């Protein structure tokens, strides 16, 4: 459906995107996730057709829409866009906004399609309201309906929830996902917020310095990050120094971890050379550690953050290492208190030091 092939982009001497490759199947929702300046917005604008491609190719439905020197202009790509600021036309009411891209249809067809879209996003009552009379969430849905009305081949969403209240974001993300799934829309989302990405996307590409570090399912990104950057950017956790005992075992301060050792070690072949005794960093997520009062292993509470249902404790180990652990919030320990912990790791993620 959407294919990016060796896409690279630079402005002057400054490379913004390097060798981007990924594809989306029809009906899939993809996401480019990364911090500011990682190049994700540039990628989106290249797909939309607002920027000229330097090298590589972008295919939509098998048609090459962008190659160096030969780009289909944005208005001919049939790619819908939901903008960060929604970009609703302030002088047009909701129905006219949604019908804006439908001038090729006859009056009756246009009205039908607009009514259909209003119904889809649940704004039939607001058809004749002006954008400034709507709440942020409603504006967002108008922007979505407007982009979907001309039946685009692909929908692009640029930080679509970032101008909304935090409480509203996740709710709307799920709502939008339902609408897209219901309509069978292929979509690509760009965001710096992993919660948004997790709530919306089937496939996520974590971007850093113009490179897609990992293109994977949300689950795999969290549990099997392939680089330090991804491990650090996605979710919480700490990297602890560990010694490789053999191809299935590493030893950390808290004990020996067993499991396949994937990640950088296996991929780069780095560990095969120092199979034994090699020092690596192991990713320990808060859910890899359990609070257990009966455990002989004690750690001191250094910091605590109340999260409602649970506490996120930062613990200092005997030899100075630090780990984070999520504990149900009825276990209310004071700072400085020593509590028992136990490892519960079912796979090992290790990186070369």
């Amino acid at each position: 459906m959407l294919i990016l092939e060796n896409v690279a982009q630079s402005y002057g001497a400054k490379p913004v995107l390097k060798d981007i490759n990924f594809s989306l199947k029809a009906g899939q929702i993809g996401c480019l996730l990364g911090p500011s300046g990682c190049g994700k917005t540039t990628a989106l604008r290249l797909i939309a057709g607002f920027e000229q491609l330097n090298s590589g190719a972008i295919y939509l439905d098998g048609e090459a829409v962008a190659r160096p020197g030969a780009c289909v202009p944005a208005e001919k790509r049939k790619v819908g866009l939901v903008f960060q600021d929604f970009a609703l036309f302030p002088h047009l009411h909701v129905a006219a906004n949604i019908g804006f891209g439908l001038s090729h249809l006859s009056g009756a067809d246009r009205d039908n399609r607009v009514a259909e879209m209003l119904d889809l996003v649940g704004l039939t009552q607001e058809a004749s309201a002006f954008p400034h009379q709507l709440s942020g969430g409603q504006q967002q849905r108008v922007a979505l309906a407007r982009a979907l009305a001309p039946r685009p081949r692909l929908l692009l969403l640029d930080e679509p929830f970032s101008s909304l209240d935090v409480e509203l974001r996740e709710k709307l993300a799920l709502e939008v996902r339902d609408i897209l799934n219901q309509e069978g829309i292929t979509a690509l989302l760009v965001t710096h917020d992993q919660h948004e990405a997790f709530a919306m996307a089937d496939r996520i590409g974590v971007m850093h310095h113009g490179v897609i570090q990992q293109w994977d399912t949300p689950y795999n990104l969290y549990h099997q990050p392939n680089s330090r950057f991804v491990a650090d950017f996605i979710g919480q956790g700490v990297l602890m120094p560990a010694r490789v005992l053999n191809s299935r075992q590493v030893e950390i301060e808290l004990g020996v971890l067993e499991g396949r050792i994937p990640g950088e070690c296996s991929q780069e072949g780095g560990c095969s050379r120092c199979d034994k005794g090699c020092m690596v960093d192991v990713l320990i997520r808060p859910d890899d550690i359990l609070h257990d009062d009966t455990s002989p292993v004690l750690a001191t509470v250094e910091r605590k953050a109340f999260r409602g249902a649970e506490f996120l404790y930062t613990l200092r180990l005997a030899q100075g290492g630090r780990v984070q652990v999520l504990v149900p919030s009825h276990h209310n320990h004071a700072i400085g208190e020593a509590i028992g912990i136990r490892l519960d790791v079912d796979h090992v993620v290790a990186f070369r030091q």
Partner: protein
Amino acid sequence: MPEPESLSIPSVAAPPVGASSFTGRLGPWLAVLPIALITAVPVLVVLSALAHPDQTIWEHLWKHVLPELLVNTAWLVLGVGLGVTLLGVSLAWLTAVCDYPGRRFFAWALLLPLALPAYVTAFVWLGLFDFTGPVATWLRESFGILKPPPVRSRSGVILVMTLALYPYVYLTSRAAFLGQGRRLMEAAQSLGQSRWHAFLKVALPMARPGIVAGLLLAVMETLADFGTVSVFNYNTFTTAIYKAWFSLFSLPAASQLASMLIFFVFVVALLEYQTRASASYAASSRAAAAPSRIALKGWQAGLALAWSALVFGLAFVMPVWQILDWALNVFEQDFDARYLDFAWHSLLLAGLGALLVGTLALVLGYAQRLHPTSAMRVAARLSTLGYALPGAVLAVGIFIPVAWLDNQLIERLGLEGQVLGGTLAVMLLAYCARFLAVSFGPVDAGLGRISKSIDEAAQSLGVVGARRLWRVHLPMLRVPLLTAAALTFVDVMKELPITLMTRPFGWDTLAVRVFEMTSEGEWERAALPAAAIAIVGLLPVFMLIRHADHAHT
């Protein structure tokens, strides 16, 4: 949260898709270059006079003309500068920061003098203090004072121009005071400063860029003024240019004088540009709430009220009342078919001017939006430089190339008489050069408020080019375009030197009529056309007031 990466995409390096074709890149320049030339040519023509000084003319000017002009101009700038700062800042501070009876009324009423051309206020004052005028008569009859205070003097000009121009400083410094909001004052107070101290230490220094910007605008208007000084027979560069041209028929002398004036003006314009560039810290966030006011009590409130009323009375009520009185006196005998002609000429010029200048401003702004390159910005800045050019200078700068073109046409094609010179086309060209900035300001700001993603939204929905301009931008620019047109309309109507110096022979407008009547001391008869100008002039001031209210409430 806007991402830096999306802001920093350099459109210079990467032209937007669809702009890559030859015509795509050239098209905007074909539109913008001629517009820039309208301003650039007169400036260059006048400046070239500076590069080729004529020995004999210079000697004559140095001996007989320049000393008086320089002294007069220096006094005028100094006096008006001080005057407008005193009036503008004090009134802005009272209405923006304090509270006293009548504050709400004066807050907008004090802007009304903007509607009166300075030359109208000027002849009212002269008429009032004339030997047969009401003030002189009253002084004589009530107090036996035979000699009324000499209004036709340097201090008289300064007083009148101060009353006419203080609204510039009032407007900008009031906006600065209001824009500061309450937070910083509260912060200063929380750090132990008294309210007055906080004002002096925080609010006033922060408002300085706003004050200076208004002051420099007023100084530019002072340098450019032709009507007021000629009513007062106070010789400055503009009147000297006019005399050199129309009494001595020496275009070279006129252009030498114009080149000197342009030099002074550019110095001021440069200062103004710099303050504007550095004024950003005075403009605070939109969230700034209206400052909690200092409530004046007792004699303080009385004094504030008296000061506001005095300035408002002298600068607006008295001139307007007097003009209406005079106009009614002479209406019966003076109003005839010629007046319909004057009015028709004024409306035609102002209407065409507003339409043309508004269109050019839109073209300029739109080209800049589609191609935000630095070359395009320079072109736009060049095109809007004309606001700094005194009308008298522009008239010279336009007349010289037009006369040259006329000669070429006559020689080459065997045409007779003037072809271009003395036509409406040349006048309109001069108006464009002079007032493009007036129109460009609102249009550019209006375009600036339309986010780039609106353009892209339309594009992604298949709507580009002229259809996008028609369906998206024009409707969104309705208010700015109307503002631009209204401002230009009134400015053209009030305009004196360009109209006077480039109009077709015998083509009188209301402003020209005012000028001619005042030159003969016929104050009452000048009042009739002046009243018409003043009434039309109120229109954009009311728009400005409404806009200011929207921005601050």
